């Protein structure tokens, strides 16, 4: 997935001279996860460069550049570090079009590795997507595989508005179903690991059905897509697993059609439960599908604690927790 993300930036930097890439360690070194490796050598250091360690500076400068007419695609080294830049995202990038009546706009992508499962403790594991979906004017994207990552990132860079692009870091090197002890599967062994050369895009705001099923609709994104697939296989629940891909704008149509068919719904995310994006999904499903529901909607999520270090796998909502919720929902 790292190569797919790099490829998306490479393709767009090639196609559009206004695309610039910067952040901490992204220039000469190519980023701590190597997502920008080679871009500086190829496009020069005024189009791909290192910045001071200052997230409000990175996003704030990018807002100014976007207002000028560039298309910055910046990296925040970990989603856990985005908070100093949050004011620039929320008060500035998200509202510039609206408050200036499109006199100035902000075509900006803020990329950030998100999620846990890498022994990162509380400062390298968070999933703060709900802090962005709550903000008017932002789009929030979470890819779950290399094909989507490239196509969605290209769409994000081309989008005329600011896009938060959250990369589940546990998926960088292969699909991960929540079993840390199992041998890692590389993307080369996965059908969605195949990434076409050159330009293509995956539209923002469209979900994908990863497994068709009749008994239960599962809403998931990022790493949790694979956890949900594993849980369905283990429990034998005939789940329809929807990979949301874009959280905002949300593909409510696909969700609604599926829940009307199955009559049951479970939501899985890695972020903490309370006021998480699952709460919004739960409310929307209730509002749109209440008379089709045969059981209460279940949420499986991270516990409402900071992300722990030693207890990572007790915190991480893996297939066991997801599977229990699936069974409870279909048996209710």
């Amino acid at each position, binding site marked *: 997935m790292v190569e797919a993300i790099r490829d998306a930036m490479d393709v767009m930097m090639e196609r559009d001279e206004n695309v*610039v890439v910067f952040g901490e360690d992204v220039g000469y070194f190519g980023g701590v996860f190597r997502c920008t490796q080679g871009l500086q050598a190829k496009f020069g250091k*005024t*189009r791909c460069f290192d*910045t*001071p360690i*200052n997230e*409000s*500076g990175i996003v*704030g*400068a*990018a*807002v*100014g*550049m976007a*207002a*000028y*007419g*560039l298309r910055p695609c910046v990296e925040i080294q970990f989603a856990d570090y985005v908070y*100093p830049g949050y*004011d*620039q995202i929320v*008060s*500035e990038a998200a*509202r*510039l*079009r*609206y*408050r*200036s*009546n*499109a*006199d*100035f*706009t902000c075509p900006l992508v803020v990329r950030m590795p998100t999620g846990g499962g890498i022994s990162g403790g509380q400062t390298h594991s968070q999933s703060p997507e709900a802090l962005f979906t709550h903000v*008017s*004017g932002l*789009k929030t994207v979470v890819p779950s595989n290399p094909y989507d990552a490239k196509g969605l990132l290209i769409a994000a860079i081309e989008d*005329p*508005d600011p896009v938060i692009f959250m990369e589940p870091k546990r998926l960088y090197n292969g699909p991960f179903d929540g079993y840390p002890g199992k041998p890692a599967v590389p993307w080369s062994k996965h059908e969605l690991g195949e990434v076409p050369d050159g330009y293509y895009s995956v539209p923002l*705001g469209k979900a994908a059905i990863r497994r068709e099923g009749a008994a239960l609709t599962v809403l998931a994104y990022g790493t949790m897509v694979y956890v949900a697939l594993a849980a369905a296989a283990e429990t034998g629940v005939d789940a329809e697993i929807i990979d949301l891909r874009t959280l*905002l*704008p*949300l593909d*409510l*149509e696909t969700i609604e059609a599926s829940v009307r068919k199955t009559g049951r719904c479970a939501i899985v995310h890695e972020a903490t439960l309370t006021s998480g994006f699952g709460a919004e999904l739960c409310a929307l499903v209730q509002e749109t599908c209440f008379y089709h529901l045969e059981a209460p909607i279940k949420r499986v999520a991270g516990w409402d604690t900071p992300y722990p270090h030693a207890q990572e796998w007790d915190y991480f909502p893996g297939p066991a927790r997801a599977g229990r919720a699936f069974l409870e929902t279909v048996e209710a």
Partner: protein
Amino acid sequence: MADYAPLKLHVPEPAVRPGDIPDFSNVKIPHAGSVERPPVDADPVSIRGLAFSIIRVLNREGEAVGPWAGLLGDGELLEGLRNMMTLRAFDARMVMAQRQGKTSFYVQHMGEEAVSCAFSKTLLPGDMNFPTYRQAGLLIAAGYPLTDMMCQIYSNERDPLKGRQLPIMYSSRKSGFFSISGNLATQYIQAVGWAMASAIKNDTRIAAGWIGDGSTAESDFHAALVFASTYKAPVVLNIVNNQWAISTFQGIARGGSGTFAARGLGFSIPALRVDGNDYLAVYAVAKWAVERAHRNLGPTLIEYVTYRVGAHSTADDPAAYRPKTESDAWPLGDPVIRLKNHLIKKGAWSEARHAQAEAEILDTVLAAQKEAESHGTLHAGGQPSVRDMFEGVYAVMPPHLRRQRQQAGY
């Protein structure tokens, strides 16, 4: 047990409070004309002294003196005077309009008119300001229509911002005026980013960032300085030190540092302090900084030493926290009177012509106001459409907003 006395926290206080006699004896004012004018490519280290002095051109007799004088002809000075007078008249009418309930909020410039009016004249078409809410002189001096400003203030049917933004948070790309946020200091680093973009594209345009003394304490101020310093961005970073951040005196943001300008020195950014009530000095110093930016010599930090004569905004009463007569004691005088006296001294102006100009300007402002009010005020007459509330959040309205707009009945 350690052998130390208990620690005590230091909380700075202004020298005087309401009821006290105003005292500016701590503001050291050098003689006009006494501060050197280095070449624009001077080594920042060699001009550190400029961050601790005050560059002044107009002396007490109304003469323009010293190495920073002589840049502006009578025509330009008269235009500057007219712009400052227009801003002052505009402010007076809009403060009154707010009291009459025609709008919710207003911010005036009394005492600070020279800063934005003179700075505006140093830029070239295409250069971009990233202003705060107290630089409307940039728009007026750039010839932006007064009526459009008022329509924004009234949030009426002709408001260029469709009623979405708080009064006075103008936006005009055409006039080199970036959309005002209302959040503090955020625009400072954006100005640096805009300037970096211009340099990335090998363009010739430059940016100017604006901030107040209080907001220099924000992290974004420091982000701006480090980015500007690192990438040698073609940007002029302006600090308007008007002594007060609402009720908080400048010593709270400045801390132990000698001056706000001195903040630039650690970043090796040339830093200058200038008499912000001296139109000629503001112009000369800003021109010097703008020239540096255009010649790709990098950023400049300028501190304009001035005084906020009026309230912070229409929601503020300064009598609660500073002596009522403090503005009379401000040692740098009034920018309009000083420029007027200079022009009279030169024989280019007179009391009679000044009175006549005042009347003409008032007529112009009143005519603009009448026109603006014919399109409505905040609670009466033509209003922006409620439909507009839902437009423009994104380039293309996403489904959830479309549903909400329908739900709202539009």
